[in-house]
């Protein structure tokens, strides 16, 4: 099966930067409804940091490249989600340290490491209605698809579908973590902004088009 080159990773970083920037307002709106409304600003800072990062020539270590993207992210945007995403990138990069290119299995391990990293850093669990409810099922679906012999593109599509389902499944629930935890029952029925950010990022990484429905 095809491998992913560092140039492709760099392309993904650029796509994530563009996607975050394009969806700033939507993230602000969601975060205003149940948080402090800064997620659009955070997304803008992350986008700027990532696009500046991608402007430089990458090293030939894909792992280091991803981990250092995480460090750049933390410097630029240290809100909850910024810090969790920074942690996710650092852990994912660490997982494949030294590798010049990434096989689909590497990508699966990276996604799993990101999921674990987010859970360890933030001390939240699946079902608490956070970005974990997108990343965790996405990692599982990607792994399962590969195990069933799916091609990279197909596995990516299943990953994104699982992520979307994860987001929608927790939408009716009450948020339990972070700022949204303080809002209590009023969060029921509202989309978690971190979930939405997770979707935006995963879709950009997988280079898939937006849902149309």
């Amino acid at each position, binding site marked *: 099966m095809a491998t992913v080159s560092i140039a492709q990773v760099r392309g993904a970083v650029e796509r994530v930067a563009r996607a975050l920037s394009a969806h700033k307002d939507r993230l*602000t709106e969601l975060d*205003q409804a149940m948080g*402090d*409304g*800064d997620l*659009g*600003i*955070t997304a803008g800072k992350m986008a700027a940091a990532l696009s500046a990062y991608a402007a430089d020539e990458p090293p030939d270590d894909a792992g280091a490249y991803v981990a250092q993207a995480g460090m750049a992210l*933390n*410097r630029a*945007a*240290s*809100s*909850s989600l*910024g*810090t*969790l995403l920074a*942690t996710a990138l650092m852990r994912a990069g660490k997982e494949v340290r030294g590798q010049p290119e990434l096989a689909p299995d590497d990508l699966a391990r990276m996604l799993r490491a990101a999921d674990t990293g987010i859970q360890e*850093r*933030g001390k939240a669990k699946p079902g608490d209605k956070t970005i974990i409810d997108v990343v965790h099922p996405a990692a599982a679906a990607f792994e399962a698809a590969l195990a069933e012999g799916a091609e990279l593109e197909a596995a990516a599509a299943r990953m994104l579908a699982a992520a979307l389902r994860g987001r929608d499944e927790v939408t009716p629930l009450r948020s339990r*973590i*972070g*700022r949204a*935890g*303080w*809002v209590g029952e*009023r969060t029921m029925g509202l989309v978690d902004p971190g979930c939405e950010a997770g979707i935006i990022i995963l879709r950009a990484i997988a280079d898939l088009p937006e849902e149309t429905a």
Partner: protein
Amino acid sequence: MRKLLNDPNDYVTEMLDGLLKAHPDQLASAEDVHAIVRADAPVQGKVALATGGGSGHLPVFLGYVGSGMLDGCAVGDVFQSPSAEQMLAVTRRIHGGKGVLYVYGNYGGDVMNFDMAAEMADLEDIRVETVLVKDDVASAPPAEADRRRGVAGMVYAFKLAGAKADQGADLDEVAAIARKTLAHTRTIGVALSPCTVPQAGKPTFTIGESEMEIGMGIHGEPGMQREQLASADAVTERMVAALLEDLAPASGDTLTIMLNSLGATPHEELYIMYRKAYDLLEAQGLKLHRPYIGRFATSMEMAGASITLLRLDDELKSLLDAPAHTPFFVQR
């Protein structure tokens, strides 16, 4: 946006530039201008106290860096956590050989970043203890007190732990004072207007001209409920009742009280509220010691106020009374 600023992205950096130009004898920066420390840091042989958090709350956080209080502060963007790197820079620069105490508000971004910083400091053999401030009674019921936000009550933790550190206590003792202080500290706020985060350029929330939200947090986090603005006496009465229910002091206890403006609310109105709070507390047989009335933890130009109560024993009282001197807080 009724604000005096240049490029919103430079708001915090320019503010810090002004701060260091104004108080070079008292404050300095560590590596990065977003890491503010005492000019005489590190104070050798003293436990160092660090805090950090978003900007927009002056004097919280960096306003309490100075003698008798904090040694350093990591400064985030408006209402944004600073990064773990900034916290580490502060930690390194203030460490005087007796360890570093982190005291800061219980907000997700701050907790994650301070935890990362503590892990990094540990690799450099700097011992770090952490005490989270969770004084806002409106942010979760008593059974979930661990989820509560940290608001104005943190100033008492800075003050008393700072005084303890000045006495030469070790890290565990200083941390213990911070914990004991906070165990006896409760705050509740009321907001009458939003404020505008420079980079967002619009108000953090909307609230009717004659509405209030009791229990709202210092970044506009939701409170207990939105309702018609009541009289100062009625508002004060509800706030004091909520605090007393949670703190449950006994008749004869001594409390210190903080009447804190969130920004726009003038001193005049704090004294109107203090008058009522005083009458209510005296009527319960409680004694008031050394009230703090002013702006101690703000949300830029938000209108509203918070009330904090801290139950004092002799030890806490003498630590409260110790002198302190920062650019924003002078006590003789």
